[in-house]
Structure formats: C-alpha cells, structure tokens
C-alpha cells in the first residue's frame, strides 16, 4: 500500500512537473541555505582551528582595552601599551620564552609602479621567533637597525609575488607612506592563512622605524608572549595579568583595561561569532522552510479540490479514509523530499564554490545532508497533513457529484 502510494505520488507530481517544481522552491532554498552555511561554517571552523594551531598553543597576546570598551580594539580612551611593558614582562614573569612588542597598520605599499594593499608590522626579530617564521632569503634585522630605526624591511613571499612578479626582491626598495625601506630578507612561504589574512602577505619593519615613520606615536598595540611550554601558559597568563594591572595602576575594584588572550580563547571567540552567524542563517533557513511548507500545503489543497471526483471514486470502491490520507500525505512528503534533494545538491554546489572563493576547505558532512533531507520530509508531513485529512474526510456522494 505504501509502495503503491509512492508510485501514485510520483505520477501525480510528474504530471504537474512545473507546478511541483515551483511549489518546492521554498523548501529547496531553505535546505540549500542550511547546507551551504553549515558546510562553509565547518570549513571555516576547521581553517580557524588550523590557524590557531599554526600560531602555537603556547602563545599569548596582550592588547589594550576590552571588547566591551572599544569594539575596534584600538586605544580610544584607553592607555595603549608601551615597549617598556614588553620589557617588564620579559624580565619579571617566569617561564617566558620570548616577548615581542608589535604595532601594525594596513596600508598601500608601492614598488616600481605597482601597488599592493598589505599589512605592515613594526616589531623586531623576536616576533619572527614567536611566530616561528623563518627567513628564506637574506637575513634577519641587525641589532643596530632595530635600535636606530633603520629603513629596512623583511617581506613575505606573497609581497614578492605581487610587487616583483616573483623575481628576486633582495635589495629592492618599497615605499610605505613617507618611508622608503630596503628589503633585507624574504620570509619562507607559508601558504596558509590565519583568520582570513594571508600570512605571506606581510611587510615587517623595525618597531622604532614603524613608530617614527608610520604610526607617529610610541604606542604598541599587541604584545606577543610565548611561554616556554603549553603547561606553563595558565601561570604565565595570570602573572602577565597581575603585572599589567600593577603597571597600569589599576585599583583592586577596577576592571582590566587590557586583554591577555590565549589561542584557545581566540578560537572560542571565533566560535561564538560563527555561532551567531550560524544562528542567524539558521533562522533564515527555518523561515524559508516554513514558507516552503505553506507552499506545499497550498498546492496540496488545490490538488485535493482538483481531484475531488477521483477521491470520491476511490472512497466508493472501498478505499478507507486512512488509505486516502496516506496517499496524499505521501504525495506531500515526496514533493518536499524532492525539494530537499534539489536543495542539497544546490547547497553543496554553492558551498563548494564559496569554499573555493573564501579559500577554506570544502567539507561536506553526511550527517548534515541526512538531517536536512529528514527535515524537508518532515515539512511535507507536517504541512501535508491538513490537506490530506481534508481529502480523507470528503463525503463520497458529494465528491462523486463534483465535476
């Protein structure tokens, strides 16, 4: 009986192919949205996880302000950090392997008539050590260059690709606003990206150079602290926090006006952001599934009216109410199931395109696909029930008289 109903349902849907396709559009869009978003979300999460791993789990970041104070993380109304803070951490906190003060700006770099919007970081060799970045060509900064604030820079492999067409860049000059600096080193190619930023797309200059010629102040926006090992990280974090509170003269009842983040924290922060995005898109998908369900209900009601006579015949020759109910319920479910399948194919295709565009891995999840399909079938059952019941409760005599 069920097989018979499914066969009948396919027949009925096929006869009205165009109408059926339009009907299931809502379900298709809903399912496609869910699949695209979840698949991309998982890809991004995997990517973020990798980035966090690439930064190293024994790394801490100290920055001025709290998220609640300044969303941009800058120093509006909050005292910025100083190079002296970094030196104090290096001297006074135990189990610290390395401390690197940094400041950075996004700006346009010019070389030989080509320009490139990139990230410039002002720091010194300790930053490269903390990030475990190696110089492939040329050399690190010399101590004299760092102290004097010389016009030299170390560039990522991506910058060489963009500005010098992949040729040798050592000894060439790059203009960064008022600063013209000479390339003394090229970093090893890393290939990956952290938080959407290409790690090869970076220019590093000595901190003093950066402060004098680019930022125009003596502030430091981010201090990297590498613990000796992962086990020490909690202790180091507490000590750094205590030291910074003392250095910033915070009373015991005052909140921190700086943040010490470890990579796990950053990862969980990103997770939260992803969660909010997922929730929003999920709500959109949910609404479109409901709209799709109403579409199916509408078309099933039309179908019941159209086929009143057929239903009358079936009832008169011995169909039970439950058999008529099943027939129409199966039809609605097959309809929404087809919509779901189209949505799954569409969603996976969009996710594959999106993943390629965003540079995150394409990770289709069978469970998500099955869930989406199950959900679309449930929509059919839910919204198909009312029309199906209406069909089953038709009065056979009235139905037979229906033209």
């Amino acid at each position, binding site marked *: 009986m069920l097989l018979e109903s499914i066969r009948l349902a396919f*027949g009925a849907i096929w*006869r009205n192919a165009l109408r059926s396709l339009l009907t299931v559009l809502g379900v298709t869009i809903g399912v496609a949205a869910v699949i695209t978003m979840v698949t991309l979300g998982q890809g991004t999460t995997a990517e973020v996880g990798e980035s966090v791993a690439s930064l190293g789990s024994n790394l801490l970041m100290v920055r001025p302000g709290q998220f609640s104070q300044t969303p941009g993380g800058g120093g509006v109304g909050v005292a910025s950090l100083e190079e002296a803070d970094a030196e104090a951490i290096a001297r006074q906190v135990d189990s610290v392997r390395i401390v690197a003060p940094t400041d950075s700006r996004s700006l346009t770099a010019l070389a030989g008539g080509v320009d490139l919007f990139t990230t410039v970081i002002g720091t010194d060799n300790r930053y490269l050590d903390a990030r475990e970045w190696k110089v492939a060509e040329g050399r690190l900064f010399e101590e004299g260059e760092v102290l004097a604030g010389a016009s030299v820079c170390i560039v990522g492999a991506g910058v060489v690709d963009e500005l010098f067409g992949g040729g040798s860049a050592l000894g060439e000059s790059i203009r960064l606003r008022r600063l013209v600096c000479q390339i003394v080193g090229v970093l090893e190619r890393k290939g990956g990206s952290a938080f959407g930023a290409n790690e090869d797309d970076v220019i590093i200059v000595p901190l003093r150079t950066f402060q004098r010629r680019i930022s125009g102040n003596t502030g430091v926006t981010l201090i990297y602290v590498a613990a000796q090992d992962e086990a020490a990280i909690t202790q180091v974090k507490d000590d750094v926090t205590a030291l910074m509170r003392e250095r910033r003269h915070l009373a015991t009842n005052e909140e921190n006006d700086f943040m010490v983040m470890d990579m796990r924290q950053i990862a969980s922060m990103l997770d939260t952001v992803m969660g909010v995005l997922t929730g929003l898109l999920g709500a959109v998908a949910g609404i479109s599934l409901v709209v799709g369900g109403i579409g199916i209900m509408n078309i099933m009601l039309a179908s019941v009216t159209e086929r009143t006579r057929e239903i009358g*015949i*079936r009832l*008169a*020759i*011995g169909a*039970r*109410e439950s058999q008529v109910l099943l027939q129409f319920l199966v039809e609605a479910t097959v309809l929404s199931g087809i919509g779901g399948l189209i949505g799954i194919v569409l969603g996976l295709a969009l996710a594959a395109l999106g993943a390629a565009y965003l540079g995150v891995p394409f990770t289709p999840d069978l469970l998500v696909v099955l869930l989406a399909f199950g959900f679309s079938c449930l929509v059919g059952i839910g919204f198909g029930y009312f029309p199906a019941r209406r069909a089953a409760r038709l009065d056979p005599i009235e139905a*037979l008289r229906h033209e």
Partner: protein
Amino acid sequence: MQAAEAPPLVELRGIEKVYGTGEGQVRALDGLDLAIRRGEFVAVMGPSGSGKSTAMNVIGYLDTPTGGEYLFDGVPVQSVMRQQRTLLRRSFLGFVFQGYNLLSRNTALENVELPLTYRGIGGQRRRELARRALHRVGLAGREEHLPSQLSGGQQQRVAIARAIVSNPALLLADEPTGNLDTTRARDIMNLLVELNRDDGITVVMVTHEADMAAYCQRRIHVVDGRVDTEAGGSGAA
C-alpha cells in the same frame, strides 16, 4: 417459502432522509419501506427528484438516513460509524455509476485492480483476479487500454468488472445505461442479467427507463420518497 426464513439482504423500514432545516427543508425519503432478498434483480424507478438515487446511496452506505431502520442481512447498520460503513461497503458492495467513474489515467486493468489494492490484495493474485473480471464482462484483450481508448459501453463494462472483482453480495447500479445508446444499453442489461442469473449476485438498479427496468424481475416505483407501486417479483410484501 424457504427464502422467507432467511432475513432479506437489505431491509429498509420507514427510512427518512431530510436535507436542510425549516422552510428550505427537503424530504428526499419519507418513510421508505423496502426489502431485497438474495439473488433478486430489482429496478428502482421513479421520476427525477423522487428520491430513488438517495435510496440507492442509503443502501450503499454512502449516505446516512435521518430516520428509520436499515438492516443489512438482518443486522442494523444505520448507527455504525463512518469507518465501519467503509468496511461494510468494501466487504459486501459493488458500485456501477451512470458516468462510469473510471480513473482516466489508469488502464482498464489498473482500474479493475483498484478495489483489490485497497483490500490489501497484492501483485500477481490481484492482476489475475482483475484479468478474470475483465474477461467475465467480455473485455479480454483490452486490459492495457485507457478509458479514453474505449467506447462508452466498454467503459461501463470496465466499471462493472471493477464492481464485481471483489465478489460483492450486492451490486448497486445507478442509471448504468443512462449515457448509452439503445444497443449498448441492451448489452449492458444483458450482462447484468447474466451476472445475476449465473453468478448469483444480487443487483439493485436505479433507472427511469421502463424498457431497461423490464429486464428486472421486480420493479419498484418510488414517488415522493415512498414506495408507490411494485410489479413482478416473488417475495413482495
């Protein structure tokens, strides 16, 4: 008489069917008394609006009377629930309509199989029974034809095959020849007579044509929702 000892297959006692209320009230049946025995071939006649079709629907459990008593094979059934009426209908009854009422997108064989499908009879056996019924009504070889590829008379034969495939005790035919020319109508009547005589199926037919009613053993005239006169038959009260 022996037949008098067994209860009638269908017995209607003072059946009333009232539509609407107050001024617009219509009394389609107004105290209809009727008894039909097994093996009879009965014509229910009357002018349009006489209530003969309503009587047929009541006998076929398609309609519930608003008053009176209905006994099927000696068992009162007017009070049973809709679902049980469906069960009774599919266990004991076969219907033939004036307009054939075939499913136009299904072949002759599929149409005849349908009642068996709803009775849970599967595959091979269902097809075999349907094939036999089509053969019985003289349509062997037309199994795969769609209703639109058959003449009116042939379509009505398919409908009759569909009605008898489930082996009903009672065949109800509502103006079965109403849409057919005289020759075809006579063929259908001869088929019904044969089914009644050779297969022992009790047949109740609603008609307003006297020459079709002439095929029946017993003719009941219904006027204004009541039995007016009766002719022929053996067990007439």
